[in-house]
């Protein structure tokens, strides 16, 4: 085994075997899965969690007889016109009704001042349901009063949906889905930003650990400093990839197992489920548009292989570039406190890239976007934002070549700083001294 692979193996195994690695690896997907499942779980159970409510309706206008529809959770019980509001309120305290909806007599020109009495907090869903229903009925009445047939009004409602089509000389016209591209770009850029920081700062900590433990000189009497540095950088890259792959696999597994156990039977059942309800709503909203076809178009419009390849390349080389920088910082300083000054300076480009991200996804092809996705220190994040929208191949190629060349140059320089720095103990070096190290 070569020294490089011995070092790589140690760097990899000691980190993967750490308790904190295991905890983060398994806790992360649980959190992700929980994040994905909880909303649907809450929606599913919200009706069940709210106890059935019966609401007494005292309608003095006599417009609403049966017009406010019952829902799963709420039953509206219409009272005789002669009932007294106060006696109905008493029934609420006695627990016979949960609430009283009082609609005082009014004329069409005066706004309806309905009141909803309850001795407990009224759920938002209930009050908005009532508002919606009341509004519909009143509008209907007003239309009729003006001599307009409500059916005519309904028929004039327009359903607008602008399809954006990007023209491309090579592949012809293509429908684009900005929203989905926006999300993919944003998520992937964020993952790169986060992972590059997380794992390259681990490289720095590893180097500092070797310095503070004073083992560094023992090791470099056996191997070249460059071998040690690269072994560490690549070893931690593998730790990072392991973690990301495990996260994805576990999140998907947990999501499916959990949704199968918790949500499963209800999703299968044909009625009263969130899924079917949502789909019904979408179908209703899109008014006859073929939802499935739309979804297929959407998926087909995204160039998955391009996105995947750029993600991998930008992640790997972005990480390598920053890992080399952080390794050099680790070599310069004796403890993590001293490293802050240097690591802040080094992190600025990445932070600029992420700060510009919202502007960039709104308009990916501005000169700002193009520059940021070319400059090697920002390109891993910035280019990732643009790739889902479709970027000319030559731009990606130039950006990647620049990134790789910079990575090689920085690694070479970092190796020089590292080589000298690891044997310096005690004081934090000045920039002038670091400049001198480069020339040794």
């Amino acid at each position, binding site marked *: *085994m070569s*020294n490089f692979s*011995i*070092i790589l193996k*140690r760097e990899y195994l*000691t980190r993967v075997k750490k308790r904190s690695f295991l905890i983060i690896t398994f806790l992360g997907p649980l959190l992700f899965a929980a994040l994905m499942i909880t909303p649907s779980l809450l929606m599913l159970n919200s009706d069940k969690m709210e106890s059935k409510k019966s609401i007494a309706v005292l309608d003095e206008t006599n417009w609403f007889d049966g017009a406010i529809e019952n829902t799963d959770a709420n039953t509206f019980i219409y009272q005789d016109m002669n009932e007294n509001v106060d006696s109905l309120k008493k029934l609420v305290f006695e627990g016979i009704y949960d609430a009283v909806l009082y609609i005082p007599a009014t004329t069409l020109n005066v706004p309806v001042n309905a009141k909803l009495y309850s001795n407990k907090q009224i759920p938002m869903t209930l009050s908005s349901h009532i508002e919606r229903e009341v509004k519909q009925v009143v509008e209907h009445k007003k239309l009729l009063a003006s001599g307009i047939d409500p059916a005519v009004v309904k028929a004039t409602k327009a359903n607008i949906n602008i399809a954006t089509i990007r023209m491309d000389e090579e592949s012809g016209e293509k429908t684009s889905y900005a929203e989905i591209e926006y999300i993919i770009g944003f998520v992937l850029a964020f993952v790169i930003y986060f992972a590059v920081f997380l794992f390259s700062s681990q490289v720095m900590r590893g180097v500092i*650990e*070797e310095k503070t*433990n*004073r*083992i*560094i*000189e*023992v*090791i*470099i*009497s*056996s*191997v070249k400093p460059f071998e040690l540095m690269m072994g560490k950088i690549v070893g931690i890259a593998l730790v990072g990839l392991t973690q990301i792959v495990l996260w994805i696999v576990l999140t998907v597994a947990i999501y499916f197992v959990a949704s199968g156990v918790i949500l499963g039977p209800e999703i299968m059942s044909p009625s009263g489920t969130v899924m079917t309800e949502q789909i019904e709503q979408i179908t209703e909203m899109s008014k006859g548009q073929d939802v499935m076809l739309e979804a297929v178009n959407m998926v087909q419009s995204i160039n998955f292989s391009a996105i995947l390849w750029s993600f991998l390349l930008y992640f790997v080389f972005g990480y390598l570039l920053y890992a080399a920088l952080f390794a050099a910082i680790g070599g310069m300083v004796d403890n993590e406190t001293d490293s802050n000054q240097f690591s802040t300076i080094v992190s600025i480009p990445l932070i600029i890239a992420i700060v510009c991200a919202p502007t960039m996804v709104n308009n990916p092809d501005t000169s700002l976007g193009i520059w940021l996705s070319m400059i090697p220190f920002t390109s891993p994040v910035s280019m990732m934002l643009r790739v889902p929208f479709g970027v000319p191949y030559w731009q990606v190629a130039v950006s990647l070549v620049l990134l790789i060349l910079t990575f090689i140059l920085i690694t070479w320089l970092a190796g020089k700083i590292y080589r000298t720095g690891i*044997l310096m*103990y005690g004081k934090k070096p000045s920039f002038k001294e670091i400049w*001198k190290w480069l020339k*040794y």
Partner: protein
Amino acid sequence: MDNFIEINNVSKTYGDYKALNNISIKVPRQSIYGLLGPNGAGKTTLIRMLNQITAPDEGTIIFNGEKLNRNHISQIGYLPEERGLYKSMKVGEQAIYLAQLKGVSQKEAEKRLKAWFNKFGILNWWDKKVEELSKGMQQKIQFIVTVIHNPQLLIFDEPFSGFDPINVNLLKKEILELRDKGATIIFSTHNMSSVEELCDNIMLINKGQKVLEGSVYQIKQDFKDNKFEIKLRTSATQQLSNSATQVLPKGFYLESEKTDNNGELELIVSADKDINPNILINHLSEQGTIISYRELLPSMNDIFINKVNSL
């Protein structure tokens, strides 16, 4: 003469700072060589060159007849001044890792380590983390990983600093044993008294310059000032004490005398060069019983200070 290491006219400059200036050394095979000098003299730079951590600007280094190269790394065992181990790694795992980096296979490393651990009676530490061990225990591990690959050349930078007296003795014993088995050993230290008894040859170095080189015996002979210490027991102590100066033979001069509580008299006598000290002993043996006699040789520390001041 068979030299294991030959360093020829080596110089090294860091910026404006001349760390080593035209240094040449010959280290005979299977000997113990001491690099002595104050902090900042250039000892560590020289040692790092042997370990190929840094390269000389000028000059050559010959290792066992060949020009020093990467292949020699696995034949060198190095205990740096700044030394340590991974705190959170298990002892056995870590020792195997370090041995592997020196080119020992995992299996062989484990076998040899078990033998060493057995020898030191520390087999039960194998699965402990380094941070669980005391400082003295860590030092033992550190020594074992330095020699685990059976190096032909052993380099110890400030070997005894930070070691407790028990481990220092253990270390000395083991180092002599390794020398007897064929290893060549280089010590580097500013604490000259700690190694002079072990070294066959030494070099005194100061500010990157060689001050003095040679065998310990020869250097001491060269720098001795012909002083002797004699202890006498006599019934007529008081009387002798008073007249001791007068009764010394020609060519001997009393430097000091003192009587201890047990009535023993200690004399420090200096002598003219080339005079036979037996004359003094014969003379004094008539005055009482001679308990001890020894030639006072200067310590390396004295020689160093003497030499540096005279430059």
